[in-house]
């Protein structure tokens, strides 16, 4: 009985019809090409890096200003 069940479960109940591939490709034809989304983490890293860069620049400018103001 167990072997019978195994054999039955290993067998596909249905096979795709011959026209299946063409039908899918017909539907795909009218759809836009998939575009790879830039990952969320990449965006976070980019924004974080930009902010850190700007802050670094301000710190540098402040340093120059502080040094000149001190005479």
């Amino acid at each position: 009985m167990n072997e019978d069940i195994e054999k039955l479960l290993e067998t596909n109940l249905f096979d795709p019809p011959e026209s299946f591939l063409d039908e899918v490709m017909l539907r795909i034809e009218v759809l836009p090409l998939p575009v790879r989304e830039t990952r969320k983490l990449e965006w976070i890293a980019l924004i974080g890096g930009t902010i850190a860069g700007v802050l670094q620049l301000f710190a540098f400018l402040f340093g120059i200003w502080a040094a000149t103001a001190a005479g």
Partner: protein
Amino acid sequence: MEIESILARIRLGDRKAFAEVVMRFQKPLFGFLGRMGLSQAVCEEIAQETFVRAWISLGRYDPAISMFSTWIYTIARNLALNELGKAARRPEISGESLPEHPCEAHPAESMNRLQQALLKLDPSDRSILALAYVEGMAQSEIAQMEGCSKGAVKVRIHRAKQKLKAFLEKDDE
């Protein structure tokens, strides 16, 4: 050909490369959907929808998160479970359609009995059993799809088989 190189060709605009994805997955996908207890017509509909949704969401597929097969079977599984949920809310339709082209290795009667027994299982039992018999599907992949541990997958498969066996034996009496 490796699935990654097929996906790379698609990203470069080669639409026809998707045919290779369909050819690679169509047969095991039909097998999976059949074991989910769906009729041939519904299997065709869901398999087609799976590939269309895979195409639409291909940009969001991340190989670092899951294997492509896990990803595509997750789409199919969700669609199948939705369909089974809808079917459960509909008045019962007697006699799910039988395979139009029964497998030669097993007579139509055995497959009919199997399908009737599968229909008696809970959708979650059917899902895990259907996935377990997809060729080359690792238990770790099933665990990822089902959102449980590998140990839980083993237990659930065993229990589902026991239930299926009981339904088939009851049918014999």
